[in-house]
């Protein structure tokens, strides 16, 4: 990690240089209270002072909601060609928990099987992180995701009259050297940064008692009454999965042209909360009830990947809490597991 400092008055020139030299994706205001990461052509469109985006930016750019995987032609033989899209882009203004979510997807899509469609886009994505203000449903400090240790090329932190810059990769260093006027960070700068981090953490209001969850979950696992209560109002609409920075499940569909000679295999975001997810040939459904499905989702988020990668697949961003029309709240439910067990 390299530490640099940039004066505030050169920030605009730095951004303008990036916008004119790269395909630049950054936060822009979408609706009253929601932002979205979109291609930015002019610095005036950029609004880094955001709280919420419906869909996590990295997931949207690296793992498309629908994506062609292969193209095939049926002649004397079947000719199958992979469709891999990738171009150099800058993702600017992504916050720490969303970077941590992306780090999870990076690991997921390169473990056991290398997902070319994901990783070719990821290699070409330069990530410039920046803190954003947490919503009241955000519990990322409880999940250890309010600070990004890796996954970014550059991380900018806005202090009073300067930006404290963490440079995570050689690629990030090249960009800084080429487009920004910076100096080395001094002891004074580190002290200001330390104070900033302490103040920033105070902005997260929601605390989740996750510490013993891994083991406590076993005790609650077969408590049908508990899960029925928790899942009572679930619509099985899948919104919680689709807005999650780490949910990666997808379905593959065959899209054959009407000429019956060629077609594509297409993947689209799937959701473990919809009844068809657990349905197999012959009509058996492994998870026929909404309480089975919600329990499985919590296990996947908070236990499965502790076993597999040593980390949660929940970064505490709070999107699922905001999006759930039935008011199902993972933070509250983690705390109720603790309460049930400690009675």
């Amino acid at each position, binding site marked *: 990690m390299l530490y640099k400092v940039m004066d505030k008055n050169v920030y605009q020139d730095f951004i303008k240089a990036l916008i004119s030299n790269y395909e630049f994706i950054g936060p822009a205001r979408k609706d009253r209270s929601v932002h979205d990461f979109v291609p930015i052509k002019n610095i005036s469109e950029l609004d880094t002072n955001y709280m919420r985006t419906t869909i996590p930016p990295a997931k949207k750019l690296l793992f498309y909601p629908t994506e062609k995987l292969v193209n095939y032609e049926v002649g004397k033989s079947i000719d199958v060609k992979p469709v891999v899209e990738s171009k150099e882009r800058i993702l600017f203004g992504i916050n720490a928990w969303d970077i941590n979510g992306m780090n999870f997807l990076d690991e997921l899509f390169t473990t056991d099987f290398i997902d070319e469609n994901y990783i070719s886009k990821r290699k070409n994505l330069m990530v410039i992180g920046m803190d954003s203000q947490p919503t009241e449903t955000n519990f990322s400090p409880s999940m250890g995701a309010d600070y990004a240790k890796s996954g970014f090329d550059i991380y900018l932190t806005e202090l009073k009259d300067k930006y404290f810059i963490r440079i995570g990769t050689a690629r990030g260093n090249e960009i800084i050297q080429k487009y920004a006027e910076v100096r080395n960070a001094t002891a004074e700068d580190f002290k200001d940064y330390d104070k900033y981090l302490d103040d920033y953490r105070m902005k997260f209001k929601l605390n989740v008692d996750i510490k013993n969850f891994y083991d406590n979950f076993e005790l609650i696992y077969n408590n049908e009454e508990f899960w029925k209560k928790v899942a009572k*109002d679930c619509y099985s609409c899948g919104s919680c999965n689709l807005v999650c920075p780490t949910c990666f499940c997808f379905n593959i569909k065959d899209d054959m042209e009407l000429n019956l000679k060629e077609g594509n295999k297409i993947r689209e975001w799937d959701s473990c909360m919809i009844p068809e997810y657990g349905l197999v040939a012959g009509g058996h459904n492994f998870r026929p009830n909404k309480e089975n499905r919600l329990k499985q989702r919590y296990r996947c988020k908070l236990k499965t990947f502790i076993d597999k990668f040593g980390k949660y697949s929940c970064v505490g961003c709070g999107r699922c809490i905001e999006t759930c029309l*039935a008011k199902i709240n993972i933070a509250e439910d983690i705390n109720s597991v603790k309460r049930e067990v400690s009675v």
Partner: protein
Amino acid sequence: MSKPKVGVFGFTGCGGCQLEILNLEDQLLDLISAVDIVHFTEAITEHSDNYEIALVEGSVSTEHGVERIKKIGNIAKIIVAVGACAVSGGLNCLKNLYGTERAMELVYGDKKDWIDSIEVKPIDQYIKVDYYARGCPPNRFEIVDIVRSLIVGRKPEIPNYPVCVECKRNGNTCVYEFGMTCMGPVSRAGCNSRCPNSGSGCEACRGVIDDPNVNAQKDLLARYGLTVEDIMEGFNLYNACNKVPTVENKNN
């Protein structure tokens, strides 16, 4: 392999579903080279009673319609109901809420006896329907998918999950956040969340999913100051012929 013969038929409705097929533009030539269209009310003058697949739009609302739909049912091996009117009766079912007599009086006054009109029903009340291309209008690409699936002998993939899935894939902000209401959480997807994409709530034109959480929808609408009657009205626009899932005792 000879091309399957297809008939496209219209019953009571606005005719927009047939228009959706004609709107396929980019795929229309491929469609007519993949199948042999022997009847298409809105598009061709030729007619033949020799067809294997019938695409039927519109609901049945006249005695003459009952005869016609039964004949189609006898001829075709595979029946596809196209659009809300054929699938669930659609908007036409609103007539049933008045009763045929009263509706006839309201619309035709003293000339009501000139008109052949009976209680509106979706086509599966008269014949067995194999596949449903839901929606008002139906998704034309889904109609293509059904036809293509029939040709290659595969089951068409028709979503049975709520509109929210497609709405989130499209990155929309939930319309409830703008103080609007939406039937999306209990309504069938397949439309690519057409209405929320343009900022309005879903009106359940594709009907409700198999296992809707009606209680949750009731609580949700109550938070927005609406009642059970409002919910029923929400369903009624396109689903008045259907038995709408009733609100169970909340404690169940």
